């Protein structure tokens, strides 16, 4: 996904000779615009800038100003600022880039065609239409405006949607529409990017080629600041028989998609898998052995529904989801004195989750917080996030799924967000007043009377608040503009707020957002299942922003309850949810699970004994816990969930296999190994208990046999004498627990 952006900043991607424009491909596009090409006046904005863009001249690491502009030749990123580009090309560097007396000797042409050494290689061939076009423009006097040129209004890709077989092809056609009503074929001048290169690639000429994987993908098409998207599905075409009866609309939409692309889902997971999965996902912990036995013993047909209800009511639900939100809200301990504010803020988030406060209300209280942290804990967010720009960027990314960072300095390459949009959003945060309080580093937050404005640093214009292009009306000097923003967010027609939340929660339960990354919602990054996303949004809105209801809906779906084990058709599927995608337990959950398995606790500074890692209020505990660090507990630096690292590492493996921390837990005198060794019950019963704790299932007979045999082994000491039976048994239990802990079945939610 991130490769999308990379394209626009990467030298290798854009400056590579492969994308060299060929004469024939482009000629068509250019001739289409004006008949009698040689007579037509070349327009800098409509003809020259697209050539520079397509050739990659204004890409980030080439001559884009944002990237420094190689050798002083600076163009606006992707040609968003033609006036600046004109200045740079024609006037700067003493005008040496153009040579009107001998146009073909112009530096721009000699460099781009490699007649003189060029760090970016050959970008235009001498016999290409673009080369001719540039030369003609210089011959005609290199004017900025012809005076008659129409303005670009829209770009359309044809077809907009498609169904392409594996290893198939589809040629796209792109049409630009101008203010004078004229149309122009700009297929060869447009830029193409597939959002799933594993599924399909798009050539510089707009030819889409699919590979041997089924699924859905989109190709973003860009021409001069306008974008259009081609969405397509690649069916596998396998029969999809025996779908489980849908539990709710999630299943209807999800199974419909699977039927369309011909990928049969895995069967439903068994009860053991389900109780472990859903308890980990809702409550952030392993089910206890008695919970598991009770669940197995229940004859109620709705026992899964009941389990979900019980988990949603449990305090560990609030702990777990607080541990998800609090780092994103940057509850970070930079100074020891932050502790009070951080505890208060964490408690506020947790209590709201426990009470199931409507999500729009939680966000409103946070967004419009005033007062001191002690009096009003959500004010702690403003303690942490002080810069108005960071405030707007965090709020828009976290609650709207819109990334505005780029628009601070340049028009976002794939979006409509301009610098005006950025600063008018910033204006909502312009009237935040701060007064020092008795607590070091902590301000009292209040609304500073006045008309909210923010200045566009580029144009110098003062802008009134507007929410991503939506007018919010006049705001008087006495009104806190942040309240108006909160109103706008939770209004029924807001296109982002509900979508961002349901997508974020979907990802929590399914590993992959319907839009991915989950906080990058834009036209050019379409969802894999738009109907499903829309239905979830509508449901969330209708429920009154009820978070627990959303979780209930998701976890009750058959889609969520599918097995992780692939069938013969869906092994390759990574985006259609035809099976459950396993994921490693998050750092805190894993530490708690290891404590549960080994029968120990982990001590955390200033917190009562027995405090679980998922209940930790801020990031400060990461410093003292190698475990939390290695397994990627976030440090509350970023509003992106990607700060939480879920991948494997050598440090993790070393830690699990041989760290002093794990060894101590295994050998704890009051721990599980010691306890099991001391019990009177049969070894079979004790192994069964261990399996119930670790995997929420009973051991299979061969597992039981292997384990019991191992436990019966006598151990020899250094001198070769057998060691005491009790001690040997305890050590053997430690080994058994070690073996279970180091298995994927334990480390993963599956």
């Amino acid at each position, binding site marked *: 996904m991130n490769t999308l952006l990379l394209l626009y900043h990467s030298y290798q991607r854009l400056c590579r000779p492969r994308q060299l424009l060929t004469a024939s491909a482009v000629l068509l596009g250019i001739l289409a615009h004006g008949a009698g090409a040689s007579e037509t006046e070349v327009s800098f904005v409509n003809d020259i800038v697209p050539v520079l863009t397509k050739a990659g001249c204004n890409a980030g690491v080439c001559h884009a100003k944002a990237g420094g502009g190689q050798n002083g030749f600076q163009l606006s990123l992707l040609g968003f600022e033609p006036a600046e580009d004109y200045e740079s090309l024609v006037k700067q560097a003493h005008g040496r880039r153009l040579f009107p007396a001998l146009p073909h000797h112009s530096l721009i042409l000699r460099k781009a065609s490699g007649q003189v050494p060029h760090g970016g290689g050959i970008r235009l061939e001498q016999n290409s239409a673009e080369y001719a076009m540039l030369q003609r423009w210089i011959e005609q006097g290199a004017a900025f405006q012809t005076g008659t040129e129409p303005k670009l209004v829209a770009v359309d890709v044809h077809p907009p949607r498609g169904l392409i077989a594996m290893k198939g092809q589809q040629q796209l056609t792109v049409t630009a529409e101008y203010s004078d009503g004229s149309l122009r074929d700009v297929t060869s001048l447009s830029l193409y990017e597939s959002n799933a290169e594993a599924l399909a690639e798009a050539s510089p000429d707009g030819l889409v080629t699919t590979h041997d994987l089924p699924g859905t993908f989109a190709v973003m098409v860009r021409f001069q600041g306008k974008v259009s998207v081609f969405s397509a599905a690649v069916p596998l075409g396998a029969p999809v028989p025996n779908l489980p009866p849908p539990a709710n609309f999630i299943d209807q939409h999800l199974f419909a998609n699977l039927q369309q692309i011909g990928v049969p889902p895995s069967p439903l997971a068994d009860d053991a898998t389900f109780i472990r999965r859903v308890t980990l996902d809702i409550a952030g912990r392993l089910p206890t052995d008695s919970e598991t036995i009770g669940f197995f013993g229940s004859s109620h047909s709705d026992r899964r529904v009941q389990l979900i209800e019980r988990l949603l009511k449990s305090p560990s639900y609030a702990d777990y989801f607080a541990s998800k939100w609090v780092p994103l809200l940057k509850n970070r301990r930079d100074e020891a004195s932050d502790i009070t504010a951080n505890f208060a803020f964490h408690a506020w988030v947790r209590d709201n989750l426990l009470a199931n406060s409507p999500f729009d209300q939680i966000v409103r209280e946070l967004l419009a917080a005033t007062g001191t942290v002690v009096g009003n804990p959500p004010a702690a967010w403003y303690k942490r996030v002080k810069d108005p720009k960071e405030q707007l960027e965090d709020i828009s990314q976290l609650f709207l799924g819109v990334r505005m960072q780029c628009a601070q300095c340049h028009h976002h390459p794939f979006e409509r967000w301009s610098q005006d949009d950025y600063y008018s959003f910033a204006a909502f945060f312009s009237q935040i007043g701060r007064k020092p309080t008795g607590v070091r580093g902590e301000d009292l937050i209040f609304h500073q009377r006045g008309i909210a404005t923010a200045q566009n640093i580029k144009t110098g214009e003062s802008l009134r608040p507007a929410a991503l292009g939506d007018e919010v009306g006049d705001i008087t000097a006495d009104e806190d503009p942040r309240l108006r923003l909160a109103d706008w967010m939770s209004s029924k027609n807001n296109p982002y707020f509900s979508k961002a939340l349901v997508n974020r929660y979907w990802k929590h339960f399914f590993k992959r957002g319907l839009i991915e990354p989950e906080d990058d919602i834009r036209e050019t990054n379409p969802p894999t299942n738009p109907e499903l996303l829309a239905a979830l949004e509508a449901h969330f809105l209708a429920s009154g922003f009820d978070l627990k209801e959303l979780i209930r809906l998701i976890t009750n779906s058959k889609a969520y309850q599918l097995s992780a084990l692939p069938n013969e058709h869906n092994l390759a599927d990574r985006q259609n949810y035809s099976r459950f995608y396993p994921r490693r337990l998050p750092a805190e959950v894993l530490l708690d699970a290891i404590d549960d398995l080994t029968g120990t606790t982990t001590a955390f500074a200033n917190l009562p004994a027995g405090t679980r890692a998922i209940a930790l209020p801020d990031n400060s505990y990461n410093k003292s816990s190698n475990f939390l660090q290695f397994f990627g507990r976030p440090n509350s630096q970023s509003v992106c969930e990607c700060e939480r690292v879920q991948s494997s590492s050598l440090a993790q493996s070393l830690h699990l296999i041989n760290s002093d921390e794990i060894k101590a837990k295994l050998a704890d005198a009051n721990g599980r190994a010691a306890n099991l060794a001391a019990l009177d019950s049969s070894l079979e019963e004790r192994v069964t208990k261990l399996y119930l704790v670790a995997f929420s299932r009973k051991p299979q007979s061969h597992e039981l046999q292997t384990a019991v045999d191992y436990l019966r082994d006598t151990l020899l000491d250094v001198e070769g004498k057998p060691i005491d039976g009790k001690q040997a048994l305890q050590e053997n239990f430690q080994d058994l627990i070690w*073996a279970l802990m180091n298995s994927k079945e334990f480390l993963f939610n599956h």
Partner: protein
Amino acid sequence: MTRVFKTLPNNFCPGPIQRRGFMKMGLGGFTSLTLPNVLRLRAENPSPTKPKKNAVILVWQPGGCSHIDTYDPKPLAPSEYRGPFGTISTAVPGMNFTELLPMQAKIADKFSVLRSMRHGSPGHPAGTMRMLSGDQDTRDKVKPRLPDWMSVTSYLRSKAGPRATPLPPHVAFNGPASYNGPAYLGDAYSPYYITGDPAKPNFSVSNIGLSDPNEVQHLGRRATLRKNLDTLERSLDQVGELSALDEFETQAMTLLTNQQTKEAFDLSREDDQTRDRYGRNTWGQQLLMARRLIEAGVDVLTTSLRGPLCGRVQNWDDHPVNHHIFDALRFRSHAYDQAVSALIEDIYERGLSERVLVVVTGEFGRTPKVSYQPSTGAGDASAPAGSKQPGRDHWARAFSNIWAGGGIQGGQFIGATDRLGEDSIERVCHEGDFLATIYQHLGIDLTTTIDDFNGRPTPIVDRGKPITELMA
């Protein structure tokens, strides 16, 4: 103590190509690590055939070294600038050092001095972040905004494929750790940290090469049991997504059980003569260990010259309130000169001078004009509390660093500062040039970008060019 690296975070590069790659590695992974295999790992050489990649040793002077008192003497400047140290000639005609560096002076033809570093961040955090990560923000921040070049290297190398050696790619042996780090790359690209004093007889690195055969035996028993119990494992393995784990488990077991790994960390395997030559002190043995580890296959090694050898405040931050700067420099100069000159000579003698680049620098230089303040505490190289002593403050407008090995042309002095050593005036180099030179040696494409937390492709070097004179 142990901090290492990871593969790509899942969200960076989803897709079946990566998955298949992992599967290939994964199937031979932890699942097959039974006792005999553990013992085999222990005995085996970790594929020594692969050509080794270029490597870098960064010797860090935390706090910032006074350029005027070391590599950029100003004998003609007024006394309140030039300080008390005499100037000596070196093996390179025209290049003079102060008298503090006689051993380096003798081998000055083996390294080059860059006298014209310059940046605008005169605080320790901002200066360190600037030099190591290229962050141009002049404010002192708690946490780095950009990943340091060491993490970037570790990240990019791990993307390039499995390693040929069981040693981690990035080791920090008492390395700089306060103001640098992997930032948005994630802690998995933090270095493998080793701390402690290698000059002490009982020094050892834990979790590396278990020496007790019983312990190895025990680990093998556990691994065998785990394999025998494996049921879900195989069916989940089909999915492939989980098998990245196997790769790291195998690496971890190798680190724990492979004898060669243990030997790489074992200084007692060096002969006495070599150990003496580096100096039988923390710094000398630290640099010797650096050379050992690099030779054994580590890609990036950082090591800081701090601690009691520096004097009272244990670093190079020679403000008059901290140290009597001249006493302090004299106090630490012998160990410094000996260790650095030994490392440079050794790199050449052992044929590592092409593959291994050695860079010695701090975050900035020190104020050319000497100031006086009451000392805040007695101790090594510091006058009794309250008595006035000379010092120099932070100075980022001009400072020096030295470069050896890495195929560079030794015996050069590049760039120059003005008459008083206050400003770099010739061939001014910035942090971008510094980083670009290092990346170039490591074979890393300077135009590489890495997505930050916001998905913004961020260049690894912003506006820097390799210092070509070094390569001449």
